[in-house]
């Protein structure tokens, strides 16, 4: 976890903590304090979705109890309040990811919808037969299938940059794939399977050097890395709210204003228009052009509260703490000598995929669940990557700042039970 932009994080430290107090932090997350299958819950599935702090749950409740109303429409008081809160959330998320202007931040359902929006509204209209889209072998299905779909429509070609056995992107090979035929490079900031943090700034520069646009899937990065889209200089950046302590059903597409401005709307309907007649419809300016219909208002407000919550922490200390969890869990797992870690890149978010020689990941998952430990087992929506490692599935733990070293100890002991069942 070397990619820490501590300057950016420190400016967000409003609480001014100098020490990271995990006991205190855990009190903020009501769901953590329960037994599952007779044991205290150990939630190690944060890359799938994170838990929500009181602040987020309360913000959503407040909205529905006190000012639920539609946005950008009514002139009544509640609508004005709802609109204000919705647009304030846009400002918050824009500042959080380092956007120059909140107009460049479109609320969507999640990273998946954001990628589909870019594929269909930006790339499809200009994509021609023989054009190329470059991906990496470590992409989530959400960053593969939308591109495949528009390739099928146009005769464009997908090119895939390989990863090394340690799970790092092979930049030399990527460079060879890039050419003036490349219309877009789509790449994850951090891998949901391997944990690898990609050298995204370098990758963006490589793509721009051949004139290609770049989309960065930041789903796994926003909860763990200081993101600054302006500094990154990508053309599009996408993320999901629920992976960064916000609610499900809300996410953000950030794009450079010059590009978003030229793109046709993704969906038509209310909210995205300035005027409509049966002869001609004038579209609303950014960002509403891409937000047809009543948006996920409570979701956006919840995401704003999640951003406030993250910024109230000493984020530098958070990242250091998560890094110590990652190192400790990796070390303890390898000490068991019977599990291999898939993904051993130098720079990682706290995600560890692991496999056992003969025990299937699903069986590991069930036996851990029986002891109150929630992990993910399966292909993690990254089947091409699984094929590369010749695996059908892995077990995966993904950690958060509310996890503890004691939980990791408990998890390691629980893995002994797995071996015992199959002895």
């Amino acid at each position, binding site marked *: 976890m070397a990619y820490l932009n501590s300057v950016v994080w420190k400016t967000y430290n409003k609480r001014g903590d100098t020490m990271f107090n995990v006991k205190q932090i855990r009190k903020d997350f009501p769901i953590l304090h329960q037994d599952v299958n007779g044991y205290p819950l150990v939630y190690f599935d944060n890359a799938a979705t994170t838990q929500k702090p009181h602040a987020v749950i309360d913000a959503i409740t407040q909205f529905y109890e006190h000012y639920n109303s539609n946005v950008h429409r009514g002139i009544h008081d509640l609508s004005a309040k709802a609109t204000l809160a919705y647009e304030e959330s846009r400002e918050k998320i824009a500042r959080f990811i380092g956007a120059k202007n909140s107009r460049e931040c479109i609320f969507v359902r999640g990273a998946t919808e954001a990628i589909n929006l870019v594929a269909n509204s930006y790339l499809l209209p200009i994509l021609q037969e023989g054009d190329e889209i470059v991906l990496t072998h470590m992409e989530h299905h959400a960053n593969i299938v939308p591109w495949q779909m528009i390739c099928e429509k146009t005769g464009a070609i997908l090119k895939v940059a390989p990863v090394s056995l340690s799970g790092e992107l092979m930049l030399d090979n990527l460079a060879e794939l890039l050419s003036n035929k490349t219309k877009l490079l789509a790449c994850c900031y951090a891998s949901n399977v391997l944990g690898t943090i990609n050298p995204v700034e370098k990758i963006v520069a490589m793509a721009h050097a051949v004139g290609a646009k770049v989309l960065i899937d930041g789903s796994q990065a926003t909860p763990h890395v200081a993101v600054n889209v302006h500094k990154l200089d990508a053309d599009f950046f996408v993320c999901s709210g629920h992976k960064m302590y916000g609610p499900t059903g809300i996410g953000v597409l950030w794009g450079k204003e010059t590009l978003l401005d030229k793109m046709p709307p993704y969906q038509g309907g209310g909210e995205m228009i300035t005027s409509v007649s049966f002869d001609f419809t004038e579209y609303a300016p950014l960002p509403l052009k891409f937000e047809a219909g009543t948006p996920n208002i409570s979701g956006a407000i919840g995401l704003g509260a999640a951003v406030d919550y993250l910024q109230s922490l000493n984020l530098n200390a958070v990242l250091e703490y998560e890094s110590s969890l990652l190192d400790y869990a990796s070390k303890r797992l390898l000490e068991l000598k019977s599990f291999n870690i898939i993904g051993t890149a130098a720079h990682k978010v706290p995600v560890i995929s692991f496999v056992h020689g003969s*025990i*299937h*990941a*699903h*069986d590991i998952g*069930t*036996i851990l669940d*029986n002891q109150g430990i929630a992990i993910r*087992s*399966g*292909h993690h929506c990254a*089947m091409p990557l*699984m094929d590369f490692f010749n695996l*059908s*599935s892995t077990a995966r733990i993904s950690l958060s700042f509310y996890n503890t070293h004691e939980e990791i100890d408990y998890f390691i002991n629980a893995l002994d039970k797995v071996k015992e*069942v*199959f002895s």
Partner: protein
Amino acid sequence: MQNLKELYQEVILDHNKNPRNFGKLEHANCEARGHNPLCGDMLRLFLKIDNEIIVDVSFEGKGCAISQASASLMTEVLKGLSISQAHDIFNKVHMLLTDDNFDMNSLPSLKLQVLSGVRAYPARVKCASLAWHTLVSALKNQQDVAKTE
């Protein structure tokens, strides 16, 4: 932990470790592939059917202990059955995996009851049913891949 013991009974662990009728069947005249999209597990089932009777059967593939044992147990009970009897077993196994009130005595082979442990684990029912869905697919002689979803 009691549920866990019922899920991973000795018979399951044994069939997982030493799957019966494992490998390609050379003289198969009926074949199907099964796929569990949830976990990515793949299974190939081979049948030799003469005059509506399953005379031989085998499978290959990778999967969790539950899916491997279920496939192995299935190959053991299928040999010698007619196609309509095989369909009948599929229906019974489906109930065995999901219905707490299922009468075990209606099973043609009592050892199949070890699969009932998945009832306490809804997420694992598909692991146990993959082989059986693949069987139905093979009997229909579909070329398509059978899916648990």
